[in-house]
């Protein structure tokens, strides 16, 4: 089993069809496969242990991903937004590597450190020039070979090296994507960075479905809308902050033609209810899909599909309406369970930790596997499943506030705060308390054009809607909350503000 099969099949079935558009340059499936075979030769010759990408999205990401797979070497895209010392540590952990991208930075941080370094253009040019290798020498990793190694964002500790095997990724793609299902006119706009699992799965899914990939290496709502119109984009994946900005830009009257957009999927963080409601109204003919997944699960494990979105929006039943904030239902190829503190499954509606099992679930780090004896992966995400099997996320299990032995999820407090007309954004987290061990602290952002509400007013709101134990001991008014580039709220930084 080798993920290179995905590109080989696409190139076999439709060699001359456009596979990828980036910076105005177009690549066919046959051209990408030939370049991946050239990259395989380069990787073999260099004798490296990893292939790393330190660069924005481009054709080099596809060529490196499949070239590394053919050579049997893990592909390890790195976050170019990391600070120098953090990036230097990661470069040390993957040496000797073939690194594609920011040559100057690699040399500055790692010296020659046994790495083989190529600038993007140099890498793709050489991969294209090389006579494709003999197919028979290509690597057969069996079920156990490592295809991708991704460093986690390391919000709580040093980044962990998550491992995805060929069998995990192929299990995901073959289980969720129909081969060559896309029409020739279809195009997917890929805007997530290459070091994110969604950036990797987007490449594999689109290639296997034979849906043309259009890359936007650096996001701005204006550039996104322009490309949607120019390339007649049919499918797009965005993180919540991107959708928020796209909706805001259209509201301001940016001229655009989004008539080709049949599907918008989103994930990677919590989508504000207000934004998805606006987007559904703004794109009435577009199907929206909320996808929930983790690096360790090869991407999506649950989704809320287009019909569920429209049904929830149109419903008077509060139970059905609430689904607009849910993660939807598990995909057919995985099992999901909610387990309580004693490690046993809890009944519907009861909160606990989300566990998942399936072929696509690696649950494994270079240091050790997190799977239990029966193959279940503890996601460290807290949530519950309703009577109809819809999954709701309340936050990271590690973010739960434990006040005097009572567990409370930051999400329920934040949801109440966001109902206040003058509150634009809110974060609740644990603060140290001599009396309770932990207590609730909140940081809130006042909505433009409103006066900040008083502390007493916010405390009363929470007391009335929840209960007195949820009332914050500390309230901070901030200009904005700290998010990373994927729209993930950095609670650790909020804790620093409240400390």
């Amino acid at each position, binding site marked *: 089993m080798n993920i290179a099969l995905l590109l080989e*099949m696409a190139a076999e*079935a439709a060699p001359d069809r456009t596979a990828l558009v980036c910076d105005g340059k177009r690549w066919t499936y046959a051209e990408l496969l030939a370049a991946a075979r050239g990259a395989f030769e380069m990787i073999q010759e260099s004798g490296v242990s990893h292939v790393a990408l330190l660069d924005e999205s481009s054709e080099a990401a596809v060529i490196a991903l499949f070239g590394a797979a053919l050579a049997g070497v893990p592909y390890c895209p790195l976050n170019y937004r990391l600070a120098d010392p953090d990036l230097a540590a990661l470069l040390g952990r993957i040496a000797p590597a073939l690194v594609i991208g920011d040559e100057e930075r690699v040399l500055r941080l790692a010296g020659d450190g046994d790495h083989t370094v190529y600038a993007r253009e140099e890498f793709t040019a050489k991969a294209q020039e090389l006579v494709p290798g003999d197919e028979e020498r290509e690597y057969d990793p069996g079920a156990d070979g490592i295809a991708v190694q991704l460093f986690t964002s390391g919000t709580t500790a040093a980044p962990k090296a998550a491992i995805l095997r060929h069998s995990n990724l192929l299990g995901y793609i073959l289980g969720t994507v*129909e081969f060559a299902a896309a029409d020739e006119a279809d195009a997917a706009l890929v805007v997530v960075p290459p070091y994110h699992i969604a950036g990797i799965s987007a490449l594999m899914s689109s290639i296997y479905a034979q849906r043309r990939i259009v890359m936007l290496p650096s996001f701005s709502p204006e550039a996104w809308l322009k490309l949607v119109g120019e390339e007649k984009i049919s499918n797009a994946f965005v993180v919540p902050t991107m959708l928020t900005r796209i909706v805001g830009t259209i509201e301001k009257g940016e001229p655009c033609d989004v008539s080709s957009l049949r599907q918008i999927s989103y994930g990677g963080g919590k989508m504000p209810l207000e934004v998805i409601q606006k987007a559904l109204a703004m794109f009435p003919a577009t199907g929206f899909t909320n996808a929930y997944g983790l690096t360790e699960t090869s991407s999506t494990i649950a989704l809320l599909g287009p019909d569920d979105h429209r049904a929830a929006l149109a419903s008077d039943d509060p139970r059905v309406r609430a689904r607009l904030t849910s993660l939807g239902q598990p995909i057919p190829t995985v099992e999901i369970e909610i387990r309580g503190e004693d490690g046993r499954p809890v009944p519907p509606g009861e909160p606990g930790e989300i566990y998942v099992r399936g072929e696509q679930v690696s649950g494994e780090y270079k240091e050790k596997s997190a799977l239990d004896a029966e193959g279940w992966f503890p996601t460290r995400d807290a949530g519950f499943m309703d009577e109809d099997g819809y999954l709701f996320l309340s936050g990271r299990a590690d973010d739960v506030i434990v006040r005097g032995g009572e567990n409370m999820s930051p999400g329920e407090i934040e949801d109440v705060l966001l109902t206040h007309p003058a509150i634009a954004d809110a974060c609740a987290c644990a603060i140290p308390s001599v009396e309770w061990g932990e207590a609730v602290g909140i940081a809130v952002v006042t909505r433009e054009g409103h006066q900040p509400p008083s502390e007493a007013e916010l405390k009363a709101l929470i007391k009335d809607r929840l209960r007195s134990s949820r009332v914050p001991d500390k309230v901070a008014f901030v200009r904005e909350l700290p998010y990373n580039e994927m729209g993930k709220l950095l609670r650790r930084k909020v804790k620093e503000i409240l400390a």
Partner: protein
Amino acid sequence: MKPGTRLKSAACDTEVMVIRCADGEIQCGGAPMGEAKPAEAAPLSADFSGGTLMGKRYVDADGKYELLCVKPGKGSLAVDGVALVTKDAKPLPASD
């Protein structure tokens, strides 16, 4: 045989990748499939000439076998003489 093994038809151009298998004989066009193509092609059996489709997954009734067609051909797939059928899964919305 293990998952990931590529098998070639002796009777046509079909190639499959094994996703799941047991101990039975995997056949195409009425002839056993192998990792290498035989020097002499086997005749295509009229009973197993429905053809294979690229990218389709073929399964048996018990769920013991699953083959992914990676190259199409004129023969059709079977295990120990029992024809396999295509696996029809409800398509999921694109999520990434």
